[in-house]
């Protein structure tokens, strides 16, 4: 189980929750799990080619990743942020 930090830009999907649990062995599968529970969330973060959107940032703990194939260990935390951009 992975704890996921949800940024303000996405709390409309999670009913206001900023921390939710999700399951999956990779970043992509965790996002898939989130999308099942909060429909539409994944596509706002990752495009149809599985690329993290330009103004979004993902961290596994303190390590940034832009790959949905990045592996997660049990107990890892996935943090989703809006970048300091967006206009």
């Amino acid at each position, binding site marked *: 189980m992975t704890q996921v930090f949800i940024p303000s*830009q996405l709390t409309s999907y999670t009913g206001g929750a900023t921390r939710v649990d999700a399951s999956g062995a990779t970043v992509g599968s965790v996002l898939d799990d989130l999308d099942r529970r909060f429909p*539409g969330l994944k*596509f706002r973060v990752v*495009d*149809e*080619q*599985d690329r993290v959107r330009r103004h979004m940032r993902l961290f596994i703990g303190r390590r940034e990743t832009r790959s949905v194939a990045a592996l997660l260990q049990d107990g890892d935390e996935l943090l989703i942020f809006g970048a300091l*951009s967006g206009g």
Partner: protein
Amino acid sequence: MTDAIQLLVGTRKGAWIYRSDAGRSNWRVQGPVFLGSIVNHLVLDPRDGRTLLMAASTGHLGPTIFRSTDDGATWTEAAKPPAFARSDDPRARAVDHSFWLEPGHADEPGVWWAGTSPPGLFRSADGGATWDSVAGFNDHPSYWDWCPPEAGTPDGSLLNQIVIDPRDAAHMYVATSSGGVFETLDRGATWAPLNENVRADFLPDPYPEFGQDAHYIALSPTNPDRLWQQNHCGVYRLDRPGTRWSRVGEAMPPEVGDIGFTVVPHARCAETAWVWPMDGTDVWPRTSPGGRPAAYRTRDGGASWERQDRGFPTEQGWFTVKRQAFCADDRDPVGLYLGATNGEIWMSGDEGESWRRIAAHLPEIYSVVAAPLRA
């Protein structure tokens, strides 16, 4: 329906809906809706008079479509927004934003079309809940020639418009910012360029088969064989079945020129249309020429144009009107509405003879759609 009008306003920071009284004199506002979202288009379904579709994204989040059936009080997100097919091609495309939403033909309830950036055509058969890529255009063998990624356009190349022949659901036109106008006779299965005699002065061949920047195209409501086009390089008219456009903008005053983003045909007179010129000289300021905003109207099919500026600033007025932000209603006399880049909405209740500002201080306006207001 009543004589009242609603204006569906998309901005860089959310959507607003303005609703008038029967005289189009007083307006009340609803909004902001989705404050902070980039709303490129907000459109009413004329087939049921109640369904609204909104093309939205944010500075951070990817694009989506929202739908309302209660006059914008509540919204449901598309379960499957427009998206290109998954691909391992290094040029694999991803929708950056949906730009244009078009209700399908009157005989096809529930069908909607969407144009995106990068240029893509998408279709929904379920009222906007799920969208599919239209392979006939998006996977056309000439797609990368028609829509080269290096073509430019400040916010990304666009399939910026979809026009459906009211007599035939299978007959459609699309306008793009990097290839010009294309036509299909089979509901989008096959496409052909339709750009003869349209200038592209930014290319080595100034009159190519495709490559033009078609800012806006519009069918005359009373004569669907008449197409108007505001192109990057002038104002054009095409009478079908002809295929050669005429540059009717050459009749505009030379000090104003015929560069602009949009053209608006009259609801009942095929000879009448309006354009909103902008400064396309030297570095392309794209402001009102000379700082004196004005619409120009033709009543003879583009043979001549008259200036309509009563009510607008007479000096130091530098706003721009983008391609989706100038429209007309079908009342008599026709009402005209424009949203400006400075966040003002202007209207004319007398076919452009005089103008008044009905809203100010909005974010940069991207689109204004006039629609009948239900009783």
